[in-house]
């Protein structure tokens, strides 16, 4: 089962901004081929970092307010939040190694 949490406008604050753990948010859309390729890699990363990081996804088509608020200009865009603040982001498809390095940098590893 996927360990990625689906986030919407309704639960974004609870799941992302108020989380005690760092949260990696994947902005995606069903029509976006690189998004489809990235999601299983992120899901795998979520399992690797279980208990250390929360991984969430936002459907950009269905949640334009969040997309606008965080100035997401291309898909996929992945944003890491810590203590309710954006710490770092990347855009486009990445290898799992790059995603792990992205998380490690923000965990202080």
């Amino acid at each position, binding site marked *: *089962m996927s360990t990625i949490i689906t986030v919407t406008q309704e639960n974004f604050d609870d799941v992302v901004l108020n989380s005690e753990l760092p949260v990696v948010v994947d902005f995606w859309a069903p029509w976006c*081929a690189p998004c*489809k390729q990235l*999601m*299983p890699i992120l*899901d795998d990363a979520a399992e690797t970092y279980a208990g250390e990081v929360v991984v969430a996804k936002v459907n950009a088509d269905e949640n334009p307010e969040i997309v606008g608020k965080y100035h997401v200009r291309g898909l996929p865009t992945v944003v890491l939040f810590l203590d309710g603040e954006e710490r770092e982001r990347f855009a486009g498809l990445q*290898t799992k*190694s790059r995603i792990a390095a992205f998380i490690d940098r923000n965990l202080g590893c």
Partner: protein
Amino acid sequence: MMQSFQDNPALKCSMLQKAQAFQASGDWNSRPVYWDGKGGSLVGGLLGSDDLDQWVEESGLPKWMALLLDMVAVILPSAEDAKAAQISLLEALPVGADLNACGNVVLVHFLKETETDIASLSENHPLRAALTDVMALHDAELAGKSPQPAEWRKARSEAIAATDQAVPDSPEAKFGAVIEAAAWNPRTSRSVVADTFRSWINARRDAAVQQKVGEQGLISFEETKKLLDRIHTEERKTRKDPKEFIHVFGILEERYPKEHKDMMDFHRIQHEEAIRQRQAAFQIIISTLQNSQDQVRCTC
């Protein structure tokens, strides 16, 4: 020990038949490891869920194989090609083999190909050392030595550092991405084989395109982009309506026919190379699977 298809040729036949029926049903889609209760990916359709623990339990196949089967569908350009490739992959799977280790073997094959591709780099180039280290970890795993997670982490860090020394988006950097992608153990990281498969296709495609562009004296993609930007900027100054659409490709064709032809040739070469390298990558996987021990072909 995991045994593919529970060591039962009838299970393989039944999965193949179910896969073909599901693909033909109209409920198939290309979103990997996905099931919404009615439709989804091939793996989703075979399971009736997206639970990969269930996949391992029912099929005796590793999780990395589920991801590879479904990722093929996103990488290939047409649904028909993707469906055919998924069936070929399923057909190539041996019955009664422990395919866990096969993931390491596939990755070693991609790394050996990459070793040849970066052979022109200097002896002490960091990418060579990174590749050797990652390959050694897979060899150790195959020898039953089970390297520690810290060893994999170190290899990944070194591969990323070596890649970052290359010019961004250069063939060297793309081959670095292959080494990075392969630096996980497929027994514990289900995306590693699909991630390496995709990275290798991209690296090989871009290296071949760069070589052919050089051989044919074509204008590079970067130069074409700069020219298109310049056309757009110059045209914008001449238009009264700032929102008026500027057909930069039409202007390129009209005023810069040589550059336009080069751009079209570039895209043709890129398309041809993408097909060629996808076939090559697929062949590496199929031949590795076919060479797996205890192979039993499905005769249904």
